[in-house]
């Protein structure tokens, strides 16, 4: 994808000596749902604000539909923002909040009224037009903020942790609603979150950020199953990250194990072997299949987490490994202290050299 609708080119932002965005390049296609994911302080908000026009950047450029945004003030950019704290105007009613954008665009009163009605019913808030923001719950305010941001029919919608203030149940519901809405309207979404599950559920692609740079960008599946580096593997999902050394014959030495695996690392170099917990089977007996790697271990702890159980085990050569299984009632139970065999398909492990 080298013809992005939004192109961020070598963007760098410094506050004094602090480099907050470090040479960021990013393409987003028209109508795409991109999530910016990363830990607190990694620069997600700053990147979003740079696109919206509230942060002047030191180097690089941002183009939307081929047009440089560098000298364009926020009010003339084809983007709208859903702010983290919603930023609803407290002195205006819900309807006036939503109508604020269309009014500025010079629409006549009747037109504004019909846009307001349409946007409010899109988010299921049609009955609340005459209320003031202070008279709404958090979830309702969130919907109004969304309605206000889509009222101008922006090409791009920027959302900064819009679901951060909601409780888990409402949050999950809004995730689905937001995704549906995005598909219906065909607006390009750039969505900031530090919740990996939220990113996986909603986004077409995820950009994982780490201290001002983009560590990896790709689909949720790519990032989960084929992380480019240890940082990404650790950040997304649960992971067993085992220290490995590349042997002379190219196989990996992990403790007492020797695994033949594909990788580009030179002999003698260090690597990380990624094993997702759900890829590991826990049995009492050895699996005879040749495609499986097996490792004897002792069960230390079992955690029941509803639909799944997590089994914490220590292998005979001292590696701590967590496995995850679906908790089907009636399955041969595994108990703490059992000697078991952990096994996984040799293709399900991944070698990370960064």
């Amino acid at each position: 994808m080298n013809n992005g609708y939004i192109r961020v080119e070598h963007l760098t932002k410094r506050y004094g000596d602090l480099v907050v965005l470090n040479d960021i390049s990013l393409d987003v296609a028209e109508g795409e749902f991109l999530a910016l994911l990363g830990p607190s302080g990694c620069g997600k908000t700053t990147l979003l604000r740079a696109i919206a026009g509230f942060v002047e950047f030191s180097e690089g450029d941002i183009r939307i539909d081929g047009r440089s945004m560098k000298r364009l003030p926020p009010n003339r950019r084809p983007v709208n923002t859903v702010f983290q704290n919603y930023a609803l105007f407290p002195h205006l009613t819900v309807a006036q909040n939503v109508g604020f954008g269309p009014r500025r665009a010079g629409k006549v009163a009747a037109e504004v009224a019909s846009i307001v009605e349409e946007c409010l019913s899109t988010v299921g808030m049609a009955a609340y037009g005459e209320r003031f923001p202070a008279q709404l719950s958090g979830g309702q305010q969130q919907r109004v903020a969304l309605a206000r941001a889509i009222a101008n029919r922006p090409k791009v919608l920027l959302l900064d942790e819009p679901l951060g203030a909601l409780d888990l149940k409402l949050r999950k519901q809004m995730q689905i609603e937001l995704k549906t809405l995005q598909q219906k309207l065909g607006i390009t979404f750039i969505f900031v979150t530090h919740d990996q599950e939220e990113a996986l559920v909603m986004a077409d692609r995820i950009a994982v950020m780490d201290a001002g740079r983009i560590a990896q960008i790709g689909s949720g599946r790519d990032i989960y199953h084929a992380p480019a580096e240890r940082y990404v593997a650790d950040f997304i999902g649960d992971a067993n990250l085992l220290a490995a050394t590349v042997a002379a014959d190219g196989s990996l030495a992990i403790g007492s194990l020797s695994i033949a695996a594909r990788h580009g690392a030179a002999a003698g170099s260090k690597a990380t072997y990624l094993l997702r917990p759900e890829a590991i089977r826990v049995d009492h007996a050895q699996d005879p299949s040749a495609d499986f790697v097996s490792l004897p271990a002792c069960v230390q702890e079992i955690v029941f987490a509803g639909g799944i159980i997590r089994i914490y085990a220590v292998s005979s050569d001292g590696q701590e490994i967590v496995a995850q299984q679906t908790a089907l009632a009636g399955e041969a139970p595994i108990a703490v202290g059992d000697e078991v065999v952990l096994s996984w398909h040799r293709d399900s492990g991944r070698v990370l050299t960064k």
Partner: protein
Amino acid sequence: MRIRNGWAALLVGVPLAFMAAFFLVPFFVVVMASFQTKDGAWSLANYARILGDSYYPSILYVTFKLSLIATLVSFVIGYPIAYYIVNVVRSRMARRICYILVIMPLFTSNIVRSFGWMILLGRQGLVNTTLMTLGLTDRPMPILFTELSIIIGLTYILVPFMVLTVAGVLQTIDKSLVEAALDLGANRFVTFAKVTFPLSLPGVVAGSLIVFTLAVSAYVVPSIMSGGRTVVMAMSIFEQYGSLFDFNFGAALAVGLLVVTLVLIALYLFFIERQPAGRQAVRS
């Protein structure tokens, strides 16, 4: 930390007792005196005398006219200063220096300050000599001892009150609201008119009330800057108490001034309350 009831009673009681002793009691004494003749008989004669001819009503009119103009000018000068300090000055240190500069006029005594203005505004004063040197006028303009000089003198000391009150409210306005307005396509001017200014109205209302009441009750500035040619209510009241020793009529003048001021303030708040944006301003 919870305050025990005994302490709470003390903390509330002391200021209340202070208010009662030094404000409420004298206030009732004044009100009662205004309804009495010199001999102590109850009567409305004092009020009849105020309304008897046009002299006192016209003084009342001048007092409120000058106070209103001083309030408006204080707003026009003070609001931009407050806006500048809060939204334009970046560093915290510079902001502090700005606040000190703003309240600087209040550091000097009222009387010294007013004599300073006399030197500036007089016939041979700096203002007139400058105007004449620039050729803008060929004769000295009469500024001193006019209503204009009273307004200048009042505004000079009242602007700080407006600035501090407005800045206090401007500071509490969430910056992301301004960003939201810009984001939705409003330019800087519209953002100010539709978001910042309406949200700062509580400060404007409070500031103008403070400034107006201070202007109405001002005595030193009008009496020096008018040179005795214009009389405001505070001067009349002082005259009754201080030179003519007619405490009963002085009291009636004071009560009259208070009542009219309260009525005007009530009308003002009522008017603001009827504006959609103002409703929030009055409530908060």
